């Protein structure tokens, strides 16, 4: 129990510190790299929770594909540092106050009922393994899986159309 807790709190510290780093760093590149650290830490949590397939999907999809896309766009747009504009000065303190209230509320709920949510100490072998995930996915969740493939196709077409429209407009203006 004690090594588990030490591992959990160490990783939780890294996750929260990297999330704060993402939030506070002025340079968008540092934010992206902090977020990658956060995603990898969460992948380790998935491993601890008996979800090896999801953990590796997290690293490939989030830390790999999505964050590389973010880094591409940041470098494309030149990682500009925005000056501090103050159009809504009251928004920042209000946001921080509301966040603190939300954290206190959930802490109250979680502390009020300790031990009611403890998971079983052992799970069946193969829980969360690629084979089990695949079987559940194609037996019980086949329709959502197909819908997701259509959604990804739509997103692909949408991204192409959105970035292409500008160029077509320029050609029309030239001609």
């Amino acid at each position, binding site marked *: 129990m004690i090594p588990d*807790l030490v591992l959990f709190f160490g990783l939780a510290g890294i996750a929260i510190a990297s999330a704060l780093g*993402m939030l506070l760093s002025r340079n968008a590149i540092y934010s992206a790299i902090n977020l990658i650290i956060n995603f990898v830490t969460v992948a380790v949590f998935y491993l601890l929770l008996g*979800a090896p397939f999801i953990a590796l999907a997290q690293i490939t999809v989030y830390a790999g594909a999505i964050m590389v896309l973010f880094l591409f766009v940041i470098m494309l747009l030149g990682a500009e540092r925005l000056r501090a504009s103050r159009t809504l000065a009251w928004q920042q303190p209000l946001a921080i106050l509301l966040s603190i209230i*939300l954290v206190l509320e959930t802490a109250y709920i979680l502390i009020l009922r300790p031990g009611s949510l403890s998971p079983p100490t052992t799970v069946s072998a193969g829980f969360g393994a690629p084979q089990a995930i695949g079987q559940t996915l194609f037996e019980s969740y086949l329709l959502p899986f197909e819908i997701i493939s259509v959604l*990804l196709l739509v997103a692909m077409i949408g991204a192409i159309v959105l970035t292409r429209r500008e160029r077509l407009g320029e050609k029309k203006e030239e001609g």
Partner: protein
Amino acid sequence: MVATEYYLGLSVLLFVLGALGVLIRRNAIIIFMSVELMLNAANLAFVAFARMHQSLGGQIFVFFVMAVAAAEVAVGLALIVTIFKTKQSIDIDQLNQLKG
């Protein structure tokens, strides 16, 4: 095995940090990354509950959330690039009109 409350607490903290990022940052890309952080926090809660109930449904749902996040990032970043081309800025305070 650590109790599920600890994972829920961590998930809440990460979610709140993501929401705070959306509310206080003005760089559109960082707001987008904060949205990813919130999705990730929700995924952590899903996996923790899947472990607690010994049911794979939560993990499958995380898989779908990842696919939706990938689609969302592709379209969203394309939007940000298009906005940058017309406005020369990704400061969301500058984006105050619907006309491009």
